[in-house]
């Protein structure tokens, strides 16, 4: 049985502004529909039904005013006629606009079942919003299983907006050991802090010993025994380690 627009809206516990936002109709117009001042334009019925998650036939076209509510004045666009000054000639009458005939409206798409990806996305969104499907169905007033593809798409869009508003804007990068170069940096940082020398084996077969003065993603700068500095390209390195004479329990730990 069809119900008044305001009753349906209050059952869903949503504001007029929300209905206006979802349906794309002016707030004033919705208030006029709710007060019964206007009967609902059939062209707006689908949009209102979608905004309220109900079927079109659930909405009464001419709402009965809410009991006790003050009467709402209809705000028609009034054109005030201004008398023409006597000394000014009247402007020429505007030419009647030629209207191009509207193309025939496309046939309504047949109702399609939701895609599996939509249902999976719904689950993910509900988890992010810490909301249960039962709560969503209570808000919708119908089970999710009864929604068709288009209706579920609208619901997903609304949930996505809510998720965007709720979750912080900053995104954290996934931690992948292979995507970062941090363990070696920590090791070299510890070696730099301790000042203990390392022995580097190079591709050309040579060995270099020195304490780490600094390092970057591609280089290591060491101080040699004679006090001079040498910057090694990591591509020229095969491996390195602390000098064997030192206490292995003090190995730099990343």
């Amino acid at each position: 049985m069809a119900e008044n627009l305001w009753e349906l809206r209050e059952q869903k516990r949503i504001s007029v502004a929300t209905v206006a936002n979802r349906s794309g109709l002016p707030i004033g117009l919705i208030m006029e529909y709710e007060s019964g001042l206007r009967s609902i334009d059939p062209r707006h019925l689908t949009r209102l039904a979608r905004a309220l998650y109900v079927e079109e036939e659930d909405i009464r076209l001419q709402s009965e005013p809410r009991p006790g509510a003050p009467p709402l004045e209809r705000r028609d666009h009034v054109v005030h006629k201004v008398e023409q000054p006597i000394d000014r000639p009247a402007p020429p009458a505007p030419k009647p606009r030629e209207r191009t005939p509207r193309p025939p409206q496309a046939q309504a798409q047949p109702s399609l079942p939701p895609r599996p990806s939509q249902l999976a996305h719904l689950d993910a969104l509900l988890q992010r919003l810490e909301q249960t499907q039962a709560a969503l169905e209570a808000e919708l007033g119908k089970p999710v299983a009864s929604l068709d593809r288009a209706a579920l798409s609208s619901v997903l869009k609304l949930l996505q907006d809510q998720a965007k508003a709720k979750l912080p804007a900053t995104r954290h990068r996934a931690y992948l050991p292979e995507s970062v170069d941090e363990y070696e940096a920590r090791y070299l940082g510890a070696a730099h802090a301790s000042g203990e020398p390392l022995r580097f084996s190079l591709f050309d077969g040579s060995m270099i010993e020195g304490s780490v003065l600094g390092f970057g993603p591609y280089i290591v700068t060491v101080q040699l025994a004679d006090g001079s500095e040498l910057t090694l390209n990591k591509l020229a390195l095969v491996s390195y380690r602390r000098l064997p004479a030192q206490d292995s329990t003090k190995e730099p730990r990343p």
Partner: protein
Amino acid sequence: MSLGDYLRLLRAQRGGVTPWEIEAATPLSKGLYRQMEQRYKSVGDEEAIRILAAYFNVPEEQLRWRTKWPRKALSKALVWSARSGEPISLELWNGATVTGIVRWWDLGAAAVELPEGGLEVVQRHAVQRWDPPAPDDDVKA
């Protein structure tokens, strides 16, 4: 050293010729060379190996065997050693072999704890081969 690392080395030895110049000078399809050099999994077929071996003037086998030792397979082997606590042997570019348990690894290096104590930090690009491979190793994955 994986095929990608080796190609980069060959490119450096050729005076830093760019991947785009290589693609322009060879009949390789667009983007294939960069994929072969940069991807962690093994990319490239026999035809690509033949073309690149001719371009760099190296034996085809020098490139071919490396396709079976990509960086991704090394990562899997390092992870396996670190998780299982089993030793791994890394055969290095300079002919040395480092054997021990992997304590940490990242994009550039891996630390192997030696039997006699202490860590040897090995640059990943210096690793030629390793043993054992990870049990679930699938180099084409």
